[in-house]
Each structure stands twice: as structure tokens, then as C-alpha cells.
């Protein structure tokens, strides 16, 4: 057996060496004759699809990696937006919670509340409480009308001193400045045109001719007659005195009652009422001091009354007199004339006189005995 094995072992080694060296050995040839199974098409498709899917996922991952800050972009402006929104919110709250200050909305009603009398409709010059617009519009005409004012100089001074009480809001002050400049521009023309304007027989020539004096501060630069030596000094410029209307009134009317002294914290309606009371008290004081006025029917017309004030009723004026209409007397004298008219049976004349008075003194509180004339 050993003899048989040896040649066979040598053959084996030779074949094995050929098997290791050669690609086309006998064993390899026999192996290639075996059926060569291959993966089916479905398996091929799955593998290829898997390979492409891997590439797509890689590209998507690369895209997300190259732009990692894109999702955080909204987060960058979010804090800024939040800060801005917070600022707006805080500003809004502060504006809403801020203590109320004097504003045109608060002070304007004090001017507008005064109800115009029926006589004002046909008497534009008798606009009671001048608003900024009315002041601006009426300034040239007022400047022209003041020159030939038929009232006495003390009356003009009194009206001038009471004038600043109505327009007091910042917008009104600004309007005053504009009106003042407008009045300045028209002053030259008013000087020359005053005579023909006032010569015209308009309503302004009637006893209501002095209402423009209420806006005297607006036309300070207009050529006014020289004030009497003891006349009150002209009011300071509005720009230098932006105080509340009542404060200005209080400054002008030193004898005003206490309730009118602190209306700044009162509602507008209360302030208006207090201001009217203050004016009334001022008029009463001005007319109560001294001897009563002398009122007599005029010989030419029984519905006209000659009035005369003697003594120290007004500073700088020893004696004042006139015939109403058209000479407008002081307030209390005016009321006395109306009462005299009623007593003498001149009811229509009394009505007209009261309407005149209301036009000149819009804040005047009509006494109970005269309310039947309204």
C-alpha cells in the first residue's frame, strides 16, 4: 500500500502546487463547470437602490451640515424684536399712566363752553371768547376797531386786562403769536383804513363797539391811544406767561374771590363757572365801591339813558358819563340801566340792552330779575 501511496502523494503535491499557482488548474476547470448561480434582478435592484439612497442621504446631510445656522437665523432677530416690542409696550403704558398735563383738549372747553348769545349771530365783532382761530381772523379788524373805540379809556384798559383769560392753551398761545404777527402786519394798513372802516354804520358802531378791546393784547403793536397815567400796565407777552387761564385771570383780577383761585385741578365745567363767578365778583366790586351811578332818561330819546359815575370807581378816572346806547357803561351800571328800562316800561330796549351786555360780557351771570328778558 505504501508503494501505491507514494506515487499518489507525489501526484497530489504536483497537482496541489498547480492548483495554487495556476488559474486554470484541473480543479478550477471542473469548478467552472458547476452551475454559476447569480443574484436575481430584484436583488440587484435592491442593492443599487440602496447605494443611491445612501448617496442621497449623504448629500442631504452635507447640505444640512453646510448650513447649520439657517435654522438659528430667526432666533437672532427674535431678541431684538422682543426688545423693540417691550419698549413700545412700556412707552405706551407710560403714556397712558402719565399724570394729565394741561393740554389743548383740557383748556379748550373753557373757551368753547361759553354759549353765544343770539345777538352774536349778527354781530361778528362781538365774538365773546376768542379762540385761537377767531383771534387770528379778527385781529386786523380788532386793531382797526380799537382806534376809534367809543368807550372810555378805562374801559378799554379793563377789557384789555381781562382779555387773556380765554385763550390760554398752548395752541392758543401759538395762535396768539401768529395773530400778533398778523396784527403787526395789518397795523400799518389799519392805521390808514381805520377811519373809513369805523365810519361805516355797522353793528360795531353800536354800544358793542368795544368788544375788540378784549383782544387788545393781540394788537399791542397797533397804534393805540396813549394809556392814561394810572392805567394798568399792559399784560406781559403770552409767550412769557403760559400759565393756566384762571391763573392769568387771577393775576389780572386781584380782587377775585377765592373759588376762582384754584380751578386748575377742577373739571373744566367747574373752572368755567368759577371764572364767571370771579368776573361777576370783579364787576360787582368795581361797581359796588363808591356812590351809585346816576341814571336818567335822555331828553332826546326816552329809551336812551344818560349815566354818570362819580368818585373813585375806576382808577384814573374821576368822572365817567355817557348815553346808553351807544356808550357802554360799566357792568353794574349797565345792569342798572336795564332795570331802569324795565321800570320805565321799555321792555324791548331792556332786551336789547341785555343782549348787548351778554355780548360784551359773555360770562356775565344774568340776575334772576332779568332772566325773563332772555
Amino acid at each position, binding site marked *: 500500500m505504501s508503494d501505491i501511496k507514494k506515487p499518489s502523494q507525489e501526484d*497530489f503535491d504536483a*497537482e496541489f502546487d498547480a*492548483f495554487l499557482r495556476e488559474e486554470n488548474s484541473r*480543479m478550477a476547470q471542473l*469548478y467552472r463547470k458547476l452551475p*454559476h448561480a447569480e443574484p436575481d434582478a430584484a436583488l440587484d435592484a*435592491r442593492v*443599487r437602490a440602496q*447605494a443611491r439612497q445612501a448617496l442621497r442621504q449623504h448629500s442631504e446631510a452635507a447640505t444640512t451640515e453646510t448650513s447649520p445656522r439657517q435654522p438659528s437665523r430667526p432666533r437672532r432677530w427674535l431678541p431684538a424684536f422682543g426688545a423693540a416690542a417691550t419698549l413700545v409696550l412700556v412707552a405706551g403704558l407710560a403714556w397712558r399712566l402719565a399724570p394729565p398735563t394741561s393740554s389743548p383738549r383740557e383748556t379748550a372747553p373753557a373757551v368753547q363752553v361759553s354759549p353765544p348769545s343770539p345777538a352774536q349771530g349778527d354781530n361778528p365783532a362781538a365774538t365773546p371768547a376768542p379762540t385761537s382761530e377767531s383771534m387770528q381772523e379778527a385781529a386786523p379788524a380788532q386793531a382797526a376797531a380799537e382806534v376809534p373805540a367809543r368807550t372810555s379809556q378805562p374801559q378799554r384798559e379793563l377789557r384789555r386786562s381781562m382779555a387773556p383769560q380765554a385763550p390760554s392753551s398752548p395752541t392758543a398761545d401759538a395762535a396768539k403769536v401768529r395773530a400778533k404777527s398778523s396784527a403787526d402786519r395789518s397795523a400799518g394798513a389799519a392805521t390808514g383804513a381805520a377811519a373809513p372802516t369805523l365810519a361805516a354804520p355797522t353793528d360795531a358802531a353800536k354800544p358793542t363797539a368795544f368788544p375788540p378791546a378784549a383782544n387788545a393784547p393781540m394788537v399791542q403793536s397797533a397804534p393805540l391811544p396813549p394809556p392814561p397815567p394810572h392805567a394798568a400796565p399792559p399784560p406781559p407777552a403770552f409767550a412769557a406767561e403760559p400759565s393756566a387761564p384762571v391763573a392769568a385771570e387771577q393775576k389780572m383780577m386781584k380782587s377775585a374771590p377765592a373759588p376762582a383761585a384754584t380751578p386748575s385741578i377742577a373739571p373744566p365745567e367747574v373752572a368755567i363757572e368759577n371764572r364767571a363767578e370771579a368776573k361777576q365778583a370783579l364787576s360787582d366790586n368795581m361797581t359796588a365801591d363808591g356812590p351809585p351811578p346816576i341814571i336818567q332818561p335822555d331828553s332826546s330819546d326816552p329809551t336812551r339813558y344818560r349815566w354818570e359815575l362819580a368818585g373813585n370807581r375806576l382808577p384814573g378816572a374821576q368822572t365817567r358819563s355817557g348815553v346808553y346806547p351807544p356808550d357802554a357803561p360799566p357792568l353794574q351800571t349797565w345792569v342798572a340801566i336795564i332795570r331802569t328800562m324795565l321800570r320805565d316800561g321799555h321792555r324791548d330796549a331792556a332786551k336789547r340792552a341785555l343782549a348787548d351786555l351778554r355780548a360784551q360780557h359773555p360770562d356775565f351771570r344774568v340776575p334772576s330779575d332779568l332772566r325773563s328778558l332772555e
Partner: protein
Amino acid sequence: MGTEKTDEELMLAYARGDAFAFDLLYARCRGMLYRFILRSVPERAVADELFQDTWSRAIQARSRYRVEAKFSTWLLQIAHNLIVDHLRRQRPQADAEETEHVLGQLDAPDHERPEEILSDFEQRRRLQLALEALPDDQRVAFLLRVDSGLGLEEIARVTGAGHETVKSRLRYAFAKIRERLAE
């Protein structure tokens, strides 16, 4: 032909995103890999699964691929690892003694009929049976040599065995198959 890219270049191109390179590479290696797997595991379904798993591992590891060996060697190494894992789960590894016993049983009938001239079909059948009867390490080494054309060093790389170990396995496998065919 001179401009034809090697398997390694195609794999590198695919790693850079060239899907067409993968198609070429797959066309080259699909049969060899599939036969290698199918010779190692009897069930075709399992072979299909292992085949797909092998390519999946290669696709996932494309970015880590380095040209340190032939691509086929790297691919067969992946398949070999999967086959070994599968066989370990299916049945225990047959030792050399068991292999000799199986080969002895296969050789017995042939020795009993030495005069029988086997037809070509019968030789292929015997070769098929001899391959299935080989221990896994010997069969893998034989398949890597016969089907994939790998040398000892490459088979050693794929299987992770030493050079002499691979040579010994091939020697055992060659002897058993030769005797099965010659007897």
C-alpha cells in the same frame, strides 16, 4: 481597455458620490460574491440575505475604504464575516475529525465502485457534494482560490488566518475533493 478603471478606483469614485461607478463595480463583483455566499450557505434565501447584507456593509463603509488590498478581497472579507456569523448561529463549526469522518463516508462508495466512470454531470455533482461536505474554513479557502482567484496572501487577509493556515486548509480541501472525484 487601458482606460478601464480598477475595482478600487470605482469604489473610490462611488465614495465621492458617483453612483455610476457603483453600478460598474457591482456588475463586476456580483456573480463572484453571490457564488461565494451560495457555496457557503445552502439556502438561497439566506444567500440572498447575506449577499445584500454584504453590499450594505460595503456601501456604509465606503467613506472608510482605503486601497490596501483588492476590492474583491475587501468585499469577500465582509461576506466571509457574515457567513461565519450565520454559520455560528446555525450549527457548530465542524472540527477536523468530523470533517475526516464525513469525507470518509463520501469516499467509501467511490472506493467500492472504482470501475465506475463518472460522467461530467456526475463529477460536477460530486464536486458539489464535496464542497458542501468541507468544513467552512476549508471550503471558504477553496472557493476564494477557485472562484475568486485569490492567492494565499489574499485568502489569508479575507479569512484573517495565517498564510500557512490557509495553505493547510487548501491542502485539506483539495485532497478531499480530489479523492472524491478520482475515486
